[in-house]
């Protein structure tokens, strides 16, 4: 439960201690080294014809691009649903709905994503859209929960003072509560993004492509180079996404907190 409120504070603290600049570039450097190293190895390795066909630049970059699309689109949909829903549920009038909605969102995350994927594929057919729906169901909880928590953790005295100054409920939400909740909401977005990078590897089972294609093909055809390429690129992508989300968190969080 508490794990959904992941903050980047620990990483930033570490950054301060070990000389910020080195720490700041560490993750992208590792991701770049992994990607370049993997691609260089693939180009120089002695591959058979199946491996060669599966590891052309077009295939690998195509799968990578599909993966990025899956992650970005599903996270955008989750933000579009989760943040407004979280705002609604954080209002006093909706406090009775909070628990049931969180239970459902929790269930979405508890159900193994492969289960949702396959069920959706059975009912609605395969494809990119189905994969996005499954990813959304899976990644909704962190953003929903963090939006609610982010709004609830705003000091009640700040809201009391703002009301006492004559700000309306809407103005308080816009000028006070939401800006103060931004860091927590963004932490939720970051968690959702990273979850989605991992879960999107399963999209291959609904014919939605992504790096899961390489992993699955590597396993089925028993070809290590294909499998390893898929895995390494997934890891590198997760690292990059986490880094970008961390930078965004820092840039978008209001000053003075």
């Amino acid at each position, binding site marked *: 439960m508490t794990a959904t409120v992941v903050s980047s504070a620990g990483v930033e603290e570490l950054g301060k201690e070990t000389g910020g600049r080195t720490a700041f570039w560490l993750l992208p450097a590792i991701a770049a080294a992994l990607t370049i190293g993997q691609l260089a190895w693939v180009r120089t390795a002695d591959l058979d014809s199946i491996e060669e066909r599966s590891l052309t630049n077009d295939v690998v970059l195509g799968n990578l691009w599909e993966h990025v699309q899956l992650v970005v689109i599903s996270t955008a949909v989750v933000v579009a649903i989760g943040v407004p829903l979280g705002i609604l549920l954080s209002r006093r009038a909706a406090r009775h709905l909070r628990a049931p909605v969180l239970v459902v969102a929790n269930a979405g995350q508890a159900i193994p994503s492969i289960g949702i994927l396959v069920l959706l594929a059975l009912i609605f057919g395969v494809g990119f859209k189905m994969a996005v729906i499954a990813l959304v169901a899976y990644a909704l909880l962190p953003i929903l929960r963090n939006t609610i928590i982010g709004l609830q953790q705003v000091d009640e005295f700040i809201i009391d*003072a703002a*009301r*006492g100054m*004559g*700000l309306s409920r809407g103005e308080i939400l816009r000028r006070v509560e939401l800006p103060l909740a931004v860091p927590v909401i963004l932490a939720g977005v970051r968690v959702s993004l990273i979850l989605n990078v991992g879960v999107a590897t399963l999209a291959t089972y609904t014919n939605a492509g992504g790096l899961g294609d390489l992993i699955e093909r590597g396993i089925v055809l028993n070809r290590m180079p294909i499998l390893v390429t898929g895995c390494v690129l997934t890891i590198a992508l997760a690292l990059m996404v986490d880094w970008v989300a961390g930078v965004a968190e820092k840039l978008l969080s209001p000053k*003075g907190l």
Partner: protein
Amino acid sequence: MSENTPMVRLHEVTKHYPGAAVPAVLPLSMDIALGEFVVLVGPSGCGKTTTLRMINRLVEPTGGEIWIDGKDVTHSDPDELRRHIGYVIQQVGLIPHMTINQNVGLVPKMLGWNKSRTAERTRELLELVGLQPEHGERYPKQLSGGQQQRVGVARALAADPPIMLMDEPFGAIDPVTRDRLQDEFLRLQERIKKTIVFVTHDINEALKLGDRIAIFAEGSRLAQFATPLELLTNPADDFVTSFIGEGAAIRRLSLLHVGDLRLVANPGLAANVEVGPGDTVAQALERALGRGVSAVQVTGVGPVAVQDLLLASSTPGPAALGAGS
């Protein structure tokens, strides 16, 4: 609006929270005059904060009427009402992601003031509460607790509201700073002449600041509503006496002015310590004790023995005091 229209009038105001056995505030009526500094004081749970928060309707009264400046505001737009009433709370509640300037300028901005007028007003207010212009660029957490509460006061004054509501504004500040802020605030009030309603649980703060003090007893009973001198001289009942605590007679000395006493000169005494009618008895004593003399020269009266000064200041009166001792 006539001279006699109270700035704040509470008429039979009550608050009864749903589900609560007893009302938080019993029918309460209170008139507060323009420019008056009224302190609501009492033990925890006596309804003083609830009463304060009903004036700007952060708490909606269950019954009764609230009048501000001759207008019934019991059912008016609460947000509009609050924009014209300053509000200061113990926790200050500055908005953390806004600079001090933005915090102070928020209400003027909402009221549609232009940028230069807001900036001018903000600068003026920071100076008024003893802060430097460069404080304006900082964020609240970069200031000390005392500085934050100065900003809290400046923010409440931003749109020049005629009324200020203050809920234990100095309650969370260390005693030395609190004392200084109280003194500064009294000097500030002499300049701005706001109508102030101030909540505290500290009777000494109430006696120091208030023109009039409303002492609340448990169950939101208004035990006495009177000037500090009147409270110390004629406490209405045992609750007031015990709430004021020890040393009422001594504390009166810093509220009594020498000019208010019936003093008889004793021309035979040599007195070279000068005391004016505007000085308090405590100040007169301070000077006499500091110089080690037994008589003071009261302007317009003549030499007066310190003993006579004390007897004239005593309560309930010299005769009774004499008989008692």
